[in-house]
Structure formats: structure tokens, C-alpha cells
């Protein structure tokens, strides 16, 4: 599908999507697929790791999706989408050459410069790895700027593992300590078995020089944050990205509000010290 945008004479493009073309589709699991986009004029999205976009499919609707790639010279950006609703279902049917509408990038993203020189413990549960992939790619691209990098990735069963080749590459070529675990034993798996917190005991963390970056389902946060604190990490060294229902992406519609914060504007990336007093956060 091609998409023409007859832009009216509007001073503000807050709510106007711009066309982006699908350049590649890479199925990851039966539920998740990665779609790579590029703007026809070659413009860069201009995003930071951890930011999100609103993606629009004419005839279907719009949905907020994390950008899962780091800024790159080709000016492409990736979205990995789980098939759940109307828009995400339609995203799974996209083919190279198709066009969608994009608004954004929105949100604060991870402050990658502030993390320079530190050890990183990156913890992804299930599709929580998706937004973290933008961080991991960024770190791989600027590897000398960061010290030891541990990546802990937990998923339910082998078939649900995403980014299989990249994980091997990050381990082999990017000097990253990649540790995988699945929730329950499986015939096709000879690696570690157990929930993601079972990867923590073997991990050596030097708290003052370490940041943990944690993204996963709501239930995972309380257990992983507890492990991080037991390892001695301060609350402002535990960084997370929160999911919320969103509509506008620009702090107006109210859907993503948690207590006094708007996830689309103040987040989605927060430190645990930012949100530990927000009862509705996790």
C-alpha cells in the first residue's frame, strides 16, 4: 500500500502522520514480527533509544509502539510488534514497499550519555526486550563508551525467543555477557531454566558503577527491582520503561497518566526513585 499525504496548511504537525515505507519484514516468533521502516525522503526519525512512535494504518487506526533500533546511518528504524489488536494485527500483514503513517518520536528515552563509563545490567522479560534492543544496539555501536555489559533475557519457551542471531552476535562480537533463561524446562532447550530472577545470584555487580535497565511485564518489576536492591543498587540506578495505554502521545489525552506523571511526556523511561512513590506505576 502506498500512502499520499495531502498536508493542509497547518502550522502544527502534532497530529499529522508522515508516510514511512516498509523496507524489511523479519518474523521473530509466532506472535512477534519486526518491521523496518524508512522515510521516502531519506529523513532520519531523529529518535533516542527508548522513545516510541505512533504508527497509523489507514482504515485501521493508530497505536503507540517502541522503536527497537538505535539511530543508524541508513536512517531506518525498526518496530517489533506483538499481534494483539486491530493495528498490531494489520502490522503483521505489512510487506516491503507498503507505507504507513508515523508520528513522533515521543517520550524521553534513555539518557545514554549519562550512562557512559558505567557497567550496565540490561534485564528484559518477554517483549520487554523490544525497547531494550534500541539500547543494546546503541551500546554495541558505542561499545568503548560503556564498561561491562550484562544482558539478562527471559522468555517462556524457546519458540518465543526473539532476535536469536543478534543475541549470539552481541555475545560473540560486542563483548556483552548475554544470559538467557526460559521459564520451564523444554526438550529443545539446554540452557538455563527458571524465572529471570534466577539469573541474578551468579551475577557480580559493583553497585556504584552499575546501572540496571529493566523492561518487562508489570509482575516482573517488583521481583527484579528487589533483586537489584539486594545487589546493592541505589533506586536511582534502576531504570525502567513503563507501558501505558496512549492516544495522543503529547501529554493531552490523559490516557497514560499515573498519579502526577504522564508516561508519554515524563517517561516512558523512569528511574525507580522517580516512580516508587507513584502507587499506580508498577
Amino acid at each position, binding site marked *: *500500500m*502506498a*500512502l*499520499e*499525504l*495531502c*498536508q*493542509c*496548511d*497547518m*502550522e*502544527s504537525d*502534532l*497530529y*499529522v*502522520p508522515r508516510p514511512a515505507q516498509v523496507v524489511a519484514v523479519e518474523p521473530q516468533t509466532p506472535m512477534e514480527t519486526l518491521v523496518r521502516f524508512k522515510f521516502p525522503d531519506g529523513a532520519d526519525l531523529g529518535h533516542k533509544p527508548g522513545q516510541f512512535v505512533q504508527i*497509523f494504518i*489507514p*482504515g*485501521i*487506526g*493508530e*497505536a503507540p509502539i517502541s522503536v527497537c533500533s538505535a539511530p543508524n546511518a541508513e536512517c531506518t528504524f525498526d518496530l517489533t510488534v*506483538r499481534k*494483539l*489488536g486491530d493495528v*498490531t494485527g494489520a502490522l503483521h500483514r505489512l510487506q516491503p514497499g507498503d*507505507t504507513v*503513517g508515523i508520528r513522533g518520536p515521543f517520550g524521553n528515552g534513555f539518557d545514554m550519555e549519562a550512562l557512559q563509563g558505567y557497567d550496565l545490567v540490561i534485564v528484559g522479560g518477554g517483549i520487554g526486550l523490544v525497547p531494550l534492543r534500541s539500547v543494546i544496539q546503541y551500546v554495541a555501536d558505542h561499545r568503548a563508551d560503556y564498561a561491562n555489559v550484562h544482558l539478562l533475557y527471559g522468555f517462556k519457551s524457546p519458540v518465543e525467543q526473539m532476535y536469536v542471531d543478534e543475541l549470539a552476535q552481541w555475545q560473540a562480537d560486542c563483548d556483552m555477557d548475554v544470559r538467557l533463561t526460559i521459564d520451564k524446562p523444554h526438550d529443545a532447550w539446554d540452557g538455563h531454566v527458571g524465572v529471570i530472577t534466577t539469573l541474578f545470584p551468579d551475577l557480580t555487580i559493583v553497585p556504584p558503577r552499575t546501572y540496571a535497565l529493566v523492561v518487562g*511485564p*508489570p509482575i516482573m518489576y517488583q521481583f527484579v527491582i528487589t533483586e537489584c536492591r539486594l545487589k546493592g543498587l541505589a533506586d536511582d540506578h534502576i531504570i525502567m520503561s513503563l*507501558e*501505558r*495505554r496512549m*492516544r*495522543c502521545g*503529547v*501529554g*493531552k*489525552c*490523559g*490516557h*497514560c*497518566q*499515573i*498519579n*502526577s506523571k*504522564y508516561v508519554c511526556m515524563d517517561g516512558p523511561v523512569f528511574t525507580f526513585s522517580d516512580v516508587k*512513590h507513584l*502507587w*499506580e*506505576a508498577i
Partner: protein
Amino acid sequence: MKSYLLPKTQLASWLSRVQADRTLYAPVADADGVLDWREVSDPAQIVLPPGVPDLPVKKLFFPTSETMLQYAYRADKAAVVATPPPATPFAVFGVRPCDALAQQVADLVFLGDLPDPYYQARRDAGTIIAVNCTEALPECFCASLNDCLTEAPGADVLLTPLDDAYLVAALTHKGEDLLAATAGDLPEATEADLARQAEVAAATAAAQTRKIDMEGVTELVRAAYGDEDFWKEHAEACVGCGVCTFLCPTCTCFDVRDDAISGRGQRFRCWDTCQFADFSQEASGHDARAHQWQKQRNRICHKFWYSVDRTGVLSCVGCGRCLRGCASHSDIAATIEDLKKQPVTPDE
């Protein structure tokens, strides 16, 4: 800024001059007798009730539904046209000071660093002509919360009823321009008339039977957040209809939806409410405010706490519509009163 005296007998002719260059909106009774904000062709249609009209004036700046994109699509091609914001000049007459203030509160959400183009266009195109209250409804409690009766922040022009005339004052440059074009032949108000304005405001404030001490209300609400029993008790009868938020002049949450059929579609936004079941539910099914008592707590915390954190002002103006409209007699003012009787639990 200049103030004038408009004999009450000349109100209709002045409004005719106002509507010569712009559309005029005012409270008009619909078929069911509900006072809604409608375009006025004849000033005789206007109904100025005691207290606020049934519906809030926000719909003129933030319509219940508005189109943002229109598009045609087929399997291989789509064409999208962004809907430009409207710019037809209008004036709205008969806005009560609490509603004018509420629009200023809504400005803090819609304008600022990322101005909403639709709201901005309507705010720029619209002139608010407020008319001060001389009576209070049982539900009114603005005087407990703010100084809208005396200062009318958010209004461009303020009319205060004196004996047989209105004191007409411009409060903004927009209001000044309107009066320069429509009130030049009216006598200027005297110092004595201006003094009467304060007396009228004070008398209206005194007539409000609902008086609540709002001292420290933000801290009070913050401290009570974790008191689940309190919120459950106060939301027990709530059916989640959301009328409290739709009637609220400062509630501005909206949904964005696509309506598409047979190759044609539109993206529109429409009023939404934190009281509805799926408002904060994520795609995963997780909902931080799944229970109705959590949704009601959110509404009250937003008015008296979250709004203060984000914008520095309360987002309750005391118009009383939410408690007038609630089918289960939820009363935001009484809730605050009850909170004061609660033992204070320390912040976590």
C-alpha cells in the same frame, strides 16, 4: 482598561453589534429544557440561569468530537488529508466566572510547549464574555476555591449586573478590542460603579451555602491516597457513567479513534473519561486503575493534587455540576469535608 455602563434594556442591541462580525454563542434551552451552548440568531433566545448553565462552555473550544484526518484507502494506496483547525471568529456570552476560569485551567493542558492546534485555533478565534453571578445555586462553591467572582480570570469581557445596567469591563486586549468596536457610544463607568462590582461579587460569595475550608487540600488528598476504605466507601454507588467528568469544565481527556468503512475513513477525537472501564487498560490487559473506586479516587486526586503538581493550580473551580449531575449523589465537596475527618496516615 475602560469600563462602560450598558442599560439592561440595551443588552440585545449591544449583542447584535457583537454578532455583526462574529458568530455568537450563549446558553439556549434545547427541546428538553437543558441549557446548552448554541449559536444564537436572536438575543431573545438567550437564557441566563442562576448559577451555571447545565453544560460547561468547554465544548466551544474542545468539541465533543472533532475530525483530525480524512482519508481514502484501498489495498494498494491511501490518500490522507489533515483537517485544518477552524478559525471562524466567535464570541460566547453568558459564561459564568467559574467556567471562564476553567477554560484558563484547560489552557494549561492544551497550550504550553506543544500547543494543540485545534484548541489553540478556537481559543484564538473566541472571545469570552462573562456575566457575573448574583445568585448562588445550592451546589455552587467557587468562593471556597478561588477569586473568580471578583477577578473573572479567563474572561475577556466581564458584565456585572448592577440595578438597571450592566457594568461592562474589558479584562484582556481581546476584550478591549471587542468593546472598542461595539461599546464606544456607551457611557463610561464611574468609580462608584466599579466599587459596586466588588459588592455584587461579595454578596454572591456570601450567598453560597456550601462553604469548605480548602486550606491544605492538596496535602490532605495526598495523605489519604492509600486509605482504600475511605475511597471505596465514597465510590460505592458510582456506576462509572462518567457524567461528572463530561460536565466538568476542566476535564479534557479524549480518545482518538478511526472510523473507516468501504475505503473511506476519518481520524477523530472525542471526549473520554477516566471513569470508563478501558480508559487506562493496556494492550496486555494490565490496568493500574481497574476498580471504580480507583477511578473515582483518580478524579478527585487529579482535581486537588495531580493538577497542582503538573500546572500549579487546582482543577476544580467549584461550579458544582458534577454533584448536580451525579445519579448516585457523589459529592466532591462533601468528600473533601469527609477527608478532613479522617485520621491522617503518614505518607509512604
